[in-house]
């Protein structure tokens, strides 16, 4: 199932244009930016999870030799209003501003309360110790269900619960109660032969990008601010900085650096506005770099949650009704991607009777942000393990029950329009046909350890958004392709490939570059699995526009009607004239003609992506440790532009899913202190924890993209947790419903069995 036959460039595996810089250590990431006269900023963070800030005394810190300036909440402008946050959502800028620097209340351990700029990072760190902050410590709320109780301590006094647009009268930690409904669940459950209802809990986890947040900023005397940022969206940084600094957006330029991973966590700004204010005060460019503990305590994470799921099916395994209750921890400020979690909860299946209640709840933890398919992995962990239990109860094959209930084109989905052409059925079919599924499981592993096999499906709703690009035909026939989409994992290659395909040139003739916000028009973030789809769509249109300009110019030069000119790959001909793009580029140069086009385009991506995963695990009953022994990921990519990069996304998502399933999770004490804010104690998978991951790319072309691209980045993190839990059940008989399924949890459950 490859596209190699249909296309010239698409489906091949060229080396990425930024690759040599990255394997020789020359690529410039956020912390690598060096500017003349550069000073260094550091942040003082709250030691308390919930506290009122009574006073901040910076005099001693300011007096330390080498310190250039100190700021705290009162140095930040008062902010109101909203800004686009990516993935179609909006961000409350007052909350965003308070998150960047606490004004009157610290809402989580690690919340920024002051910052220092000094001539060296060491001096800045020393100065932090000299800042005196007086706190009134308040009781923290760190569990979503406790935060929802009527007498819970309130985090944000102005927060009212929004239920379908109606606001509650009194303050609450529940920011929103969303409801999605279809059909009649009572009738659906009455029709069921089997009904299973289960409860689940989830810890906060972090995106875990290896590059900590880093930026540099220079605020010049003329009011022009330049920000160098490691970010998923340079325009998102510009918008947020303009709002938080209350600065004219036209006087803000964001230069994206290379980005060392993001997974959704590098969309909000944390350091950038602080660096800008410090730069204005110090009158020098300022660089700021977080350490890992700051990253874990103050950025990212994905919501912890409580979920309850109830599903019913008739005796043949057809789902008759499904109900979900999702309470997500937004962290300090609202917005936990609860809506996305609700959309994804039962998304692989065609359901007639559904009700889902979702709650967005603030707690004294870092303000949550997107993490790869935000909201989906935990929601689908619940539904996919319940469905597994139904299949087991009814004695139906686990893939067969997924195939027979599969959603398809035209089916309902929460908050939807109905599905367009989707590929879940094809994924399940490919799983059924896979070598892995057809290889009998050997039930006994090393030293008598028990083995089991699990499967799960997953959905993520891929976004479209706006992309802008500029194309310039160079005199030697190559094309400079300037992009607004930041490149996290090879998008310069996958975008250049689509341009080359559409423009009729080779991949090597295209020179892509990610440029700053002054150079290219508005461009949404690299997120929502949108870049290969949306920026690919934009460069397709750009190529067609450039071809149109070439034809227009040629009509004049050749003195022929434009309609008579035909294009075949890189050759243009009409009426005895014929030339390749390389010859034309020279001809244009000789005649003073420049082919230079720009485009801003918004595709429409309503299709969504599906995946089905199969995993074999081995459980050590003495220690409770679970090892992954075989893994196969099956996914509908629509069309795989660069198959190696599609496989890489699938494998990377699986590895993160394995971490989420087995070892990752924030550990808090009762005071709301994070007890594992290092990479020793926050355990991400190593090369020993992840087996070789087999990949099967299914290609059901997306009808709304010229090459059928769907977007592949996020959905592979959705099935692993559920598939692994189902495999642990298959091995041991245990149904685990709390993540992570760490050795201690598994061992305890085995003891109780």
């Amino acid at each position, binding site marked *: 199932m490859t596209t190699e036959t249909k296309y010239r460039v698409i489906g091949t595996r060229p080396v990425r244009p930024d690759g040599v810089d990255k394997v020789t250590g020359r690529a410039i*990431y956020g912390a690598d930016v060096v500017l003349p006269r550069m000073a260094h900023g550091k942040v003082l963070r709250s030691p308390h999870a919930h506290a009122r800030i009574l006073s901040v005394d910076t005099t001693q810190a300011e007096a330390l030799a080498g310190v250039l300036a100190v700021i705290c909440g009162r140095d930040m402008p008062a902010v109101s209003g909203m800004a686009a946050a990516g993935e179609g959502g909006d961000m409350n800028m007052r909350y965003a501003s308070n998150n960047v620097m606490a004004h009157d209340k610290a809402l989580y351990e690690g919340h920024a309360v002051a910052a220092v700029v000094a001539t060296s990072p*060491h001096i800045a760190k020393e100065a932090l110790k000299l800042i005196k902050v007086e706190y009134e410590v308040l009781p923290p709320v760190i569990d979503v269900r406790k935060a929802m109780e009527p007498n819970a301590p309130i985090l944000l006094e102005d927060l009212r619960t929004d239920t379908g647009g109606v606001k509650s009268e009194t303050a609450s930690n529940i920011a929103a109660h969303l409801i999605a409904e279809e059909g009649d669940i009572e009738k659906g459950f009455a029709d069921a032969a089997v009904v299973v209802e289960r409860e689940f809990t989830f810890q906060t986890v972090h995106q875990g990008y290896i590059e900590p947040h880093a930026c540099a900023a220079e605020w010049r005397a003329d009011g022009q601010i330049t920000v160098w940022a490691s970010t998923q969206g340079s325009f998102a940084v510009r918008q947020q900085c303009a709002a938080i600094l209350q600065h004219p957006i036209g006087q803000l330029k964001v230069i994206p650096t290379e980005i060392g991973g993001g997974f959704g966590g590098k969309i909000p700004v944390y350091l950038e506005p602080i660096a800008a204010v410090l730069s204005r005060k110090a009158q020098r460019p300022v660089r700021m770099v977080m*350490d890992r503990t700051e990253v874990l305590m103050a950025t990212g994470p994905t919501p912890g949650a409580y979920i309850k799921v109830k599903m019913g099916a008739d005796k043949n395994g057809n789902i008759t009704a499904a109900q979900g209750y999702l309470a997500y921890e937004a962290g300090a400020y609202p917005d936990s991607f609860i809506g996305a979690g609700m959309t994804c909860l039962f998304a692989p299946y065609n359901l007639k009777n559904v009700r889902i209640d979702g709650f967005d709840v603030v707690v004294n933890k870092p303000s949550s942000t997107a993490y790869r398919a935000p909201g989906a992995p935990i929601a689908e962990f619940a539904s996919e393990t319940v469905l597994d239990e139904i299949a087991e109860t009814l004695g139906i094959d686990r893939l067969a029950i997924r195939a027979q209930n599969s959603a398809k084109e035209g089916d309902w989905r929460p908050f939807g329009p109905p599905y367009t052409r989707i590929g879940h059925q094809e994924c399940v079919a490919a799983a059924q046909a896979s070598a892995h599924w057809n290889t009998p499981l050997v039930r006994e592993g090393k030293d008598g350890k028990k083995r089991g096999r699990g499967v799960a499906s997953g959905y993520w709703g891929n976004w479209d958004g706006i992309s802008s690009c500029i194309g310039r035909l160079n005199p030697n026939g190559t094309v400079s392709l300037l992009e607004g989409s930041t490149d996290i994992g090879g998008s310069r290659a996958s975008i250049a490939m689509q341009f080359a395909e559409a423009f009729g040139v080779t991949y090597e003739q295209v020179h892509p570059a990610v440029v700053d916000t002054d150079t290219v028009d508005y461009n949404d973030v690299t997120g929502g699995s949108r870049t290969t789809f949306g920026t690919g769509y934009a460069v397709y249109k750009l190529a067609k526009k450039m071809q149109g300009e070439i034809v227009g110019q040629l009509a004049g030069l050749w003195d022929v009607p434009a309609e008579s000119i035909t294009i075949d790959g890189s050759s243009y001909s009409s009426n005895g004239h014929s030339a390749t793009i390389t010859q034309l580029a020279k001809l244009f140069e000789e005649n003073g003609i420049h082919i230079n086009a720009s485009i801003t385009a918004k595709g429409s991506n309503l299709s969504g992506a599906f995946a089905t995963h199969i995993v074999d695990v081995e459980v050590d009953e003495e220690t409770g440790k679970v090892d992954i022994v075989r893994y196969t990921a099956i996914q509908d990519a629509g069309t795989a532009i660069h198959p190696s990069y599609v496989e*890489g*996304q699938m494998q990377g998502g699986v590895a993160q899913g394995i971490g989420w399933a087995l070892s990752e999770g924030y550990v808090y004490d009762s005071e709301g202190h994070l007890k594992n804010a290092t990479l020793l104690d926050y355990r991400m998978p190593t090369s020993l924890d992840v087996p*070789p991951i087999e990949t099967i790319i299914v290609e059901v072309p997306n009808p709304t993209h010229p090459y059928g691209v769907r977007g592949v980045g996020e959905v592979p993190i959705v099935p692993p947790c559920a598939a692994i839990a189902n495999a642990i059940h298959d091995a041991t008989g245990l149904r685990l419903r709390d993540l992570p399924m760490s050795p201690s949890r598994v061992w305890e459950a085995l003891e109780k069995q």
Partner: protein
Amino acid sequence: MAVQIASGKVAISATINGEPQTWLSEPRETLLEALRDRLGLTGCKEGCSNGNCGACNVVMDGRLVNTCCVLAVEAQESEITTVEGLGTPDGLIPLQKNFLEEAGLQCGVCTPGFLVATKALLDKNPNPTDDEIRWWLAGNLCRCTGYDKILNAIKKTIAETTTE
């Protein structure tokens, strides 16, 4: 011999990527900071600052080290190889070429550490098994790739060198 000068800084001499270098560091500076901020060798990355990610790996006197856990003054008179010393843009070593061809990187921030660590392994053991590779690299975290394509790049390099 360490020379402490009036500013409190220490003069350090070492051979880095084959070139003799002398610079000043504060006693509290890590080797990682010195390489990055004093010598401009920003191929060394800081991922965790406490020895848990391997992004800051270099080879120092034949040993693979996490430079975030080494003080700059400890590098006195040592020989150090960083990622910048492995190959040049027009003269990549096979391992670098294979990371590119096998898509062994996505964001690329872990890549310098993996390249240096793997080079250190292959210098000691030119023909390691898959298990030996995975054990050796357990100190290097990659959050993007799931390690599969990194292993492919390394195995391809081994296959090329052992058949040559």
